[in-house]
């Protein structure tokens, strides 16, 4: 299976790998997948209280190259977006950008779920 250049670049030089303080009120964490399924994605956003803009995003992913590239790309896209703009990110945008093959579409779904999970966590902390 040949992967796209963009996918390989995100895999080899992943952007925004790391951990934000999950106990902080302006950090939202999404943890999706399961080790038994071969994919676990943790995606975190840090939201600026004053502006409501996502000012930082970090991820760590256990999974195949497509899962890692999908989460790396997602963090890139999240930075600078408002919560509403972030919610509009669709998994098919990721599929297209990375040219994911059909068997890897679930990786993009996982990334979208992780984004939604992180936002839900942030919102529950800031009702």
């Amino acid at each position: 299976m040949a992967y796209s250049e963009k996918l390989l670049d995100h895999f080899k030089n992943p952007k925004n790998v790391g951990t934000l303080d999950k106990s902080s009120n302006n950090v939202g964490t999404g943890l999706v997948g399961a080790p038994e399924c071969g994919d676990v994605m943790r995606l975190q956003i840090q939201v600026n209280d004053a502006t409501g803009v996502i000012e930082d995003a970090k991820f760590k992913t256990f999974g195949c190259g497509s899962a890692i590239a999908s989460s790396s790309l997602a963090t890139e896209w999240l930075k600078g977006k408002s919560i509403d703009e972030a919610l509009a990110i669709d998994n098919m945008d990721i599929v297209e950008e990375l040219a994911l093959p059909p068997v890897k579409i679930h990786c993009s779904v996982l990334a979208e779920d992780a984004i939604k999970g992180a936002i839900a966590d942030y919102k529950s902390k800031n009702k």
Partner: protein
Amino acid sequence: MNKKLIYLDNNATTPCDPRVIEAMTPYFYELHGNAASRNHPFGWRSEEAVDYAREQIANLIQVDPKEIIFTSGATEADNLALKGVYEMYSRKGNHIITLETEHKAVLDSCKKIEKMGGEVTYLKVDRLGRVNLQELEDAIKDTTILVSIMWANNETGVIQDMKAIGEICARKGVLFMSDATQAVGKIPTFPKEMGIHLMAFTAHKMYGPKGVGALFVNRKNPRVKVTSQMDGGGHERGMRSGTLNVPGIVGFGKAAEIAAKEMESENQRLAGLRDKLEKALVDKLEETYVNGDVDNRMAHVTNLSFKHVEGEGLMMTFNQEIGVSSGSACTSASLEPSYVLIALGLGDDLAHSSIRFSLGRFTTEEEIDYTIDQIVNGVNHMRDLSPIWEMYKEGVDLDSIVWEEH
């Protein structure tokens, strides 16, 4: 990319030995006859070549040349043995016993037999991948006609106690078949010493060409017969019709001859390289586990799990240069990891974290040294990215987390 590629996936297929290719070459053009053409020199010469190859192969496994039935490969030989015995002996019974860890060629043939009205018992293996002999004996009943147990496993290299299994089958009066695809040409495989009545194997796992395999069928004490699954001109004593693949068979014969001669020294060399690879990775990378029975294992195989690293992702860190395979089936639609490793009692997570290294005749020490460095870098890279490795390092009990399975 002019870097040399490193091939450590010899259980998938081996390269053709140049000596094999040399032996085969004349049989594509100069000596192109059909071995079944009885009326001219073209046919005679091809028949002679097939006879000679049959002897070379019979010599490797110490059987009579008449007991070798050529097929298109081990999958066909497995199908012929299982379905052929089931049809031939259906008057005696309909029960077959096999293992959960068999190759799909055996398992799917058994599934088909179940649809045809047969009954199949799939025995479990222990944590080392070995069959429990008492469980096997207890599973044999009046209607049992065949026990089918692979000689060596393709994923782990684990070797079964063929002699003890053969004794049980002899005592109980049932036929014993073995898928010996991974074993023949790699370790001594003498079916008559083990009480094996049918044995499937193939050329392309022993440095021969793809597309040619064989089934050994015992001719005396007992005389075993199988119902043909391919009907036509009545080749191979009526058990497998179809024009013989003469160049392939010639290559198969040459590969068998080389294997018989070089197996012992080759195994010593490969065991040294395999042990070096395995030891280095286990020493340099914490939480690395060897899968399967290390005391009963082929010399060229090691199957390792790197905890909290997903196998396919790991492979992507080095697969531009190094070819191995993983028990993580992330590319398949099912997302199911290796059923063989699951049968050994590995959790799904460790099965997803597994890599099989299978060395071969052309593997060099330099390649092993380079591979060690690449795997160590790859595992460390993947662990830096892995949230569950981070949790594990922080002492989080991963079993306590409610995962969102998808």
